[in-house]
């Protein structure tokens, strides 16, 4: 049975309420941290844990915290990124909905470590019912002395506020989020200055993902050193994976990062195999921005080694033959799915979400959407495939924020691994409207092995 650090108690009856959460051992970590540790010691513990940001980029959290500037007399802020809008990703929602006090507990400890007296949770506007759940948890925590003035007699004051976004994927990017929190359009800022120096209201700011901040609780309870023993290599601790697509058991799973991709898909403990007895065609393992992998590169790396559900193994082979852990949004496509159409919907998504500040992103995402739509609907030309390749290359690396890259990568990977499917669409404009390409030579890896 796998170790569970975040969701172990998520289904205890009534765990949303303070009393049950507390009875199950909740707020012990706050007690330990605030009463027996200094802010610096907490940062040190998080460094030792090896925790990496769970929002997508995987940057070491302890290191990020140690960069926060501490100019005399200037308040600092912690902002929790609950914008969760990367297609395929719905893990933060699960955590906030089912075990909200875990996040609040993590926020109190992290606010203490960073010196934030006013901490904000920026949540995507569409999750319109979750702020009520969080505000209820905050009120209970406050009523029980874990928030407010002079918490546990330490002299530390802290308030947590929930701020709703209003429908914009780009506000998940940390500088766009800060702009939005200031009441502006979500246009990413040019870095530097980094938020750690000049963030919200020009004050030093740390932005972290929901899951990252919740993971601080087990780190304090276990110690950083013990936390780091779970998992493998630089993939320490546990990771929430939201699994969707053509699988038997879509949902949110907490994994320790030693299991293989094959086990994750086929084990009854996780996805439970491909639905309706179909065969596996492809998978986007870390949210819509990361490269899609055909089945034959999913279970084994190009070197023929088993691929595991962790940062290093998922990216083994780079973009040529690997992918990324990303946000943990695990999208599975069976043999009946069309890679061209799926990629088209993602291109449409990125065009819709581009803030429009940089021309390569604004124009490029529009062109990619149009060309992919043409190919998908049987109006494409062979030269369109090369044109798409060319456009995505011109976006990547030439924009203010990484949304440009995020839009380019899925298109690049789809062409890289499924070029014959694109070509088939162009060569068979009518047939491609009535049936799908199928598996072709990207046979289910299990059959290749057999």
């Amino acid at each position, binding site marked *: 049975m796998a170790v569970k650090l975040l969701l172990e108690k998520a289904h205890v009856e009534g765990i949303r309420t303070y009393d049950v959460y507390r009875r199950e051992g909740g707020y012990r970590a706050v007690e330990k941290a605030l009463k027996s540790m200094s802010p610096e010691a907490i940062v040190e513990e998080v460094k030792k844990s090896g925790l990496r940001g769970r929002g997508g980029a995987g940057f070491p959290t302890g290191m990020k915290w140690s960069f926060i500037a501490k100019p005399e007399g200037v308040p600092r802020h912690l902002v929790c990124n609950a914008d969760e809008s990367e297609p395929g990703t*719905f893990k933060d929602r699960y955590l906030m909905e089912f075990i909200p006090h875990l996040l609040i507990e993590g926020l109190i400890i992290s606010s203490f470590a960073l010196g934030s007296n006013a901490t904000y949770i920026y949540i995507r506007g569409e999750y319109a019912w979750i702020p009520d759940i969080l505000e209820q948890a905050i009120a209970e925590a406050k009523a029980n002395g874990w928030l407010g003035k002079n918490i546990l007699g330490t002299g530390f004051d802290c308030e947590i506020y929930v701020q709703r976004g209003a429908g914009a*994927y780009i506000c998940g990017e940390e500088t766009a989020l800060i702009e939005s929190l200031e009441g502006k*359009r979500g246009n990413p800022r040019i870095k530097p200055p980094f938020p750690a120096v000049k963030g919200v209201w020009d004050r030093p700011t740390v932005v972290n993902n929901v899951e990252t901040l919740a993971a601080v609780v087990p780190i304090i309870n276990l110690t950083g050193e013990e936390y780091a023993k779970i998992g493998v290599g630089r993939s320490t601790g546990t990771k929430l994976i939201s699994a969707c697509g053509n699988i038997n058991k879509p949902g949110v799973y907490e994994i320790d990062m030693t299991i293989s991709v094959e086990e994750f898909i086929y084990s009854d403990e996780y996805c439970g195999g491909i639905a309706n007895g179909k065969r596996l065609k492809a998978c986007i393992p870390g949210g819509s921005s990361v490269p899609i992998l055909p089945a034959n590169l999913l279970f084994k790396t190009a070197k023929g080694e088993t691929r595991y559900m962790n940062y290093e193994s998922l990216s083994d082979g780079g973009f040529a033959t690997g992918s990324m852990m990303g946000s943990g949004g695990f*999208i599975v496509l069976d043999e009946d799915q069309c890679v061209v159409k799926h990629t088209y919907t*993602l291109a*449409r998504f990125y065009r819709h979400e581009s803030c429009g500040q940089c021309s390569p992103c604004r124009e490029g995402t529009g062109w990619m959407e149009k060309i992919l739509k043409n190919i998908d609907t049987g109006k494409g030309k062979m030269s369109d495939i090369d044109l798409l390749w060319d456009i995505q290359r011109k976006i990547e690396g030439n924009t203010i924020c990484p949304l440009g890259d995020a839009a380019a990568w899925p298109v690049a990977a789809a062409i890289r691994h499924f070029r014959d499917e694109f070509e088939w669409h162009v060569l068979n404009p009518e047939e491609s409207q009535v049936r799908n390409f199928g598996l072709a030579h990207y046979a289910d890896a299990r059959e290749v092995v057999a």
Partner: protein
Amino acid sequence: MTKFSDEKLAKVQEIIARYPDGKQKSALLPVLHLAQEEFGWLSSDTMDYVASLLSIEPIEVYEVATFYSMYNLQPVGRYTFEVCQTGPCMIKGSDDIISYIEQKLNIKPGQTTEDGMFTLKTVECLGACGYAPMMQMGKFYKEHLTKEKVDAIIDECRKTAAANN
């Protein structure tokens, strides 16, 4: 005249108090949500009113209201169906759900039924990909949609509306 109830005005003050002095513009997104709740959509009068509440220029409100997809800049029906059409929902049949609703209500995405009851919109990933196909209806999500479920939702809406009229 566009004006919040006293209760909403108190809420606005409570929201402004979350930010440092002089940073009341940070309250803009939450206050626009309140305004939309109260008035259904954001007319230019409403936006001007919000600007006056936060002591900012009307243009600062227009800029924001036009950027974020959740703000309605036109009146919408009593119930809005926002059906997700991104990849993970698409592979679970969101296209069929959208055409079924189009057919059933005789409207296209972006349109409202003549009786002002329903608006249909297509939206991008709402973070419910594992429970696809899905749509947002007001504050909540309707997940694992089927044609039968859509029928039931529409009936339910009509009944509730009739009971409240």
